[in-house]
């Protein structure tokens, strides 16, 4: 039977389950794994996870729907998440959304026709001193202006990444080697 998980991912599963005293504890990490694999959590993936953890599919589904960060529909190759919490909102979340719309023609929840970008608004991403900001896949882009935003989007579209990415920020800062 075909699996929603690649062979490499399937090999990681026993290790993930083993980390928890109860099988059920592995639910969130396995959902992440599914999202890593397909960009979203498909129904097939939910059923497979239910099978591994002795849960029923509805039980997995209710967890998926509780967390906004699990996507239940396929999304673009690059997931743009714009922080809309208070700090960012005060310094221009709306502007940022407008710039993105001007550049890519998508509004919140939409995906570009070429399937590259999906735009979401999310709650605080922890960059309150450096707004407005957005996260594209795993990278942060902060203190955004329209020019900077355009450049980031151009770079990402062309190369998949952009040197303007900042972070990851850690606290306490890791010791310098």
């Amino acid at each position: 039977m075909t699996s929603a998980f690649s062979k490499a991912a399937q090999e990681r599963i026993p290790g993930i389950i083993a980390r928890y005293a109860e099988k059920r504890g592995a639910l969130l990490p396995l959902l992440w794994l599914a999202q890593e694999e397909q960009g979203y959590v498909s129904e097939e993936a939910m059923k497979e996870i239910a099978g591994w953890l002795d849960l029923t599919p509805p039980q997995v589904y209710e967890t998926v729907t509780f967390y906004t960060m699990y996507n239940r529909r396929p999304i673009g190759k690059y997931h743009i998440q714009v922080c809309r919490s208070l700090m960012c909102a005060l310094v221009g979340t709306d502007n940022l959304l407008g710039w993105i719309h001007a550049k890519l023609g998508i509004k919140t929840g939409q995906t570009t026709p070429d399937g590259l970008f999906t735009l979401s608004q999310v709650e605080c991403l922890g960059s309150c001193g450096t707004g407005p900001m957005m996260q594209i896949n795993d990278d942060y882009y902060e203190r955004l202006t329209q020019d900077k935003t355009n450049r980031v989007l151009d770079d990402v579209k062309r190369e998949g990444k952009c040197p303007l990415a900042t972070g990851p920020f850690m606290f306490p800062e890791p010791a310098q080697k």
Partner: protein
Amino acid sequence: MAEMVTILIDGKPIEVEKGTLVIEAARRIGVMIPHFCYHPKLKPDANCRMCLVEVEKMPKLQTSCSTVVAEGMVVRTNTPVVDEAHKSVLEFILANHPLDCPICDQGGRCDLQDFSHRYTPTGSQFTDTKRVYEKGFFSPLIEKEMNRCVSCLRCVRYCDEIMDVKALANAARSTMTEIVHFAGHPLDCEFCGGCVQICPVGAITSRLSMYEFRPWMMKRADTTCGYCGDGCSLILETRGEKVIEVMSSHGNGRNNGDLCAKGFFGYQYVNHEDRLTTPLVRQADGNLHPVTWDEVLPVLAERLTQIKLAHGADAIGGLISARCTNEDLYLFQKFMRLAIGSNHLDSTARYGHVNAARALRRVQGTNRWTVSYEDIVQADALLLIGTQVTAANPIVGLKVKEAVKKHGATLLTLETLVPSIETTSNITNLSALHVAVPPGRHAAAVRGLVKAAFDENLVDAALSSRAGDYVSRIRAAATALPYPEGLDEAALRAVAKAFAGARRGVILIGQDLLQAPGGHESAVNLLDFLLLLGKLTQPGWGLAPLTEENNEQGAVEMGATAEYLPGPADVGDAAARTQIAGAWKDQPPASQGMHLLEMLDAARAGTLKAMLIVGENPVRSLPLSAKAASALEKLDLLVVQELFLTETAKLADVVLPACSYAEKTGTFTNSEGFVQKVRPGLEPVGDSRPDWEILSSLSVMMGYPLEYGDAKEILKEIRAVIPGYRVLGAKPEPAQVAAKSVEQYLTRGFAEDLPARYSAGAAPKANSHRWALAVGQTLFHSGAMSTKAQGLLELQHEGKLIMNPADAQRLGIADGDRVRLTSTSGEATVPVTMLGRIPEGTLFFPESFREALAGLPSMTPDPVTGVPYCKQLRVSVDKVGTGGASSGPPPARIAGGK
């Protein structure tokens, strides 16, 4: 004695057990604290916040549903502060609740409606628009209106905690919380109706009674379910001549308010348009024509009398369904034995339950369970052998689940199903130890269990010294056998050990064991097992056979079988004969009666001339190879009392319309021996009459009047004649193991068939048919009756062969494909579906749709008890259309428990 604490609620002192919740303590003194999410069956969740109360010395209001009483606690439920809190919570709930009471089916029995009236909120501070959910199709039987939901999650918790199905989920969060099935798909579950009943508002309702009537417009009848032997109390809600819906109430009956799909959604056969409404008589043109009772009864009485005079009473036989009431069954056997004068009578308990009844009587003296449902719940080890309990006896299944989930009992299963999580619950998922037993191999597994008792040194020392001969001879017989091939020996030994080590243990056995060759011997062997462990006579221990039909226990006890007089007592038992003759003022016939298969043989041979069949359809129940139809056709006179024109009724010379259980007064006796009331919710449909009334009228016209004013008079006689019926009601006399019987069994009784009981049995015949096919009950159907219930047909409308997905993949079969099955006796073509719980190499087919199997099953009668075994067979499977060679299953796989 539980520790007691005294608390003060609204100034009233009350003493309650330690651990009681405040809301429960309040209820006991008549203080009803408003609540939504609390339900006595469920663990406290305290999510609705409606039940807030003031507790002295606590700074804030407390949720009374999750606060446990403490000595000296002072609770106030009616202060202005509490009242204000209730009003506020209600205002929040009503912020989103639509004002659609006029079209809501819950109107009139809605908690939210009641509390709204109580707190009379006239306005709301909320000005936002109410949330609106998109409405979609939820399921054919259960309707969902999420706008009405108060998010108490009772349905989700019930589905998990009680049913172990976990089909409902609370998706999303906050105000947009929504009750859904997986990913918004239509609901696919056990359809027990529990969510419908437990919903405090109108968010989840039944579609079968949608928009029909208001609760107060219906008439209610408290009665007992007519499907399986669990004996659930239910309420028929009727209006005019129609059953509108079925309900049950928490705290009531052996089921404590829980029901299954058959009980909750399976009532519509009562009002099916095909119900017989007038007597039918076969006339010169060879067809059945409607006549009146006044026309048919005198003629029928005369025919019966003629046959009796011409050929003797022994030329007349009778057969009755164990779905009839005790009163019907009792009068039937009395009619046969006195008015006719024949001992040739049988009931559908013959299809399996007599195996268990006979074994129990032989060893423990009583045919009844010596345990009750409470003992199942309290047991710390439960051993299930061939029960398919969720499908065949769902409510006993719930007791098992309760024991395991709430009380931590160890579940040991010797079942055909293997653990697999699917849309209906699977009892083997809860097993601590599971031995996968292929169809037809349960008897071998039981012998292995007895052997294990010796091999693991579990035999009671006291028994060895008291009955040394018994122990050594059973030891010799049981240990001489090898462990059954293909079963996991280590697991079997572990099961015996775990069971023997328990403080209280109950063995539940079901149709896979009792309706298969060796059924009778296995039941005796299990009693050996209990005796050897020294547990048979211990309180809380016992062997509990489950019955397929609702009143098989009653059928045996009413004496509606050839071998038993009411009691049951053996037909040849002189003392019992004297006693019954005293009550009847006449002697029952002394001849040894014939059971069902013998009667059919006699009919075929021409010695049996007439048969009276009440509510049973042997033409359908027995496989084609039993040739029941041709035997019945040879009779001079076939009389059938029925609800529908069944295959058997179509052969009859006279068909008499009978009442269904919904139109009858009487009693049913459930598996565990509780005698429960059946009350009519409807007037008899058409001209139909209760079965006992028909027999009574006939007896009068035959000049042997068995006259009773009503069913209660028959019950009065039953209570005088049968010891187990003296004390009825909620707490009947529990059956006891009779020391004398056990003594007799240990000294002599055990030996008579010892070699037969511990022989390896006929090895499965080696032939080219390598798949094991089991025919059995499903959760949604039981017998043919359920296939007349529209609600159940919505869930399952045809018989599909179920196979393991891996097998299907190997054969290249997809869901819905058709396969041809071939056995030594015939072939059939059926559609296929897959379930992981059916082990590889095994197939399952629902018994209710057995017509589709045509001539496939063959029949083996039990040489001792005459039970016709026809539910396990070996077949070959060919995908239709490919014409490829038949492929066999893989070698038997042994599945361990979790």
